[in-house]
């Protein structure tokens, strides 16, 4: 069960009217390494992982939904006031025909949401996939920041990128926990 807090995890401010940027940002919304795929994958993996790691997957999976909400806010702000002509110029003509002004789960190239490899049911395989996904999401944020000249959007994207680093570190620690020999003391 979840409780909802009616605020964003980090404020989203958009300074420059650039519908084109929305097309890039949608990668983190409905892309294979995007926030939706991450949230669903982590929450799904909770069931077949040793008990001591379930809470971590629960917390990070939940946070990914908070990130998803930030991305949706950015995309919506960038497209809600655009004319159909402007959307077309931004490469979002197809999107407009299919979905109007709604945000939608597809990647930057317009392919419908696909979770990709998702859950294997092997704790080590799943956690290594999660680490890889966090690093891929981190680099996606880097490439979007490189394409964006809006310092306010880049500020929020920088926050999201840093969260990927933290999540990657936590998953690496989870692997260490699962590697521990049973009945041995942990030394930090």
């Amino acid at each position, binding site marked *: 069960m979840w409780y909802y807090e009616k605020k964003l995890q980090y404020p989203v401010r958009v300074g420059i009217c650039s519908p084109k940027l929305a097309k890039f940002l949608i990668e983190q919304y409905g892309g294979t390494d995007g926030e939706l795929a991450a949230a669903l994958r982590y929450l799904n993996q909770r069931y077949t992982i040793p*008990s001591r790691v379930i809470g971590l997957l629960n917390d990070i999976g939940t946070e990914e939904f908070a990130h998803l909400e930030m991305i949706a806010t950015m995309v919506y702000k960038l497209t809600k006031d655009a004319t159909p002509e402007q959307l077309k110029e931004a490469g979002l003509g197809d999107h407009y025909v299919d979905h109007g002004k709604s945000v939608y789960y597809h990647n930057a190239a317009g392919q419908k949401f696909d979770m990709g490899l998702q859950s294997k049911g092997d704790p*080590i395989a799943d956690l290594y996939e999660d680490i890889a996904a966090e690093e891929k999401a981190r680099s996606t944020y880097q490439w979007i920041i490189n394409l964006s000249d809006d310092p306010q959007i880049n500020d929020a994207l920088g926050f999201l990128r840093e969260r990927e680093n933290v999540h990657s570190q936590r998953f690496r620690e989870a692997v260490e926990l*699962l590697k521990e*020999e*049973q009945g041995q003391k942990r030394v930090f």
Partner: protein
Amino acid sequence: MSTSRKWYAPYISPLDPCPPLSPIAYETPAQLYLGFQPQGLEQFSPFDALVHGTLWPALFTPYTNPYQSKKRGEF
């Protein structure tokens, strides 16, 4: 020496419909522990290496069905 199989006991509800399956095994093969492979590791003979799929005993982590053994939780 690291073990290549660990066990954990999942939460079991008194309301579960099926008899509990516990503990549950997961594999932690040798490559998780080796780090950068040191030089001069012991080697299999060429014939044994072909059979085992690796030249190095330190990397050889065979898999057996953990649920076929009568002694669950032991390895």
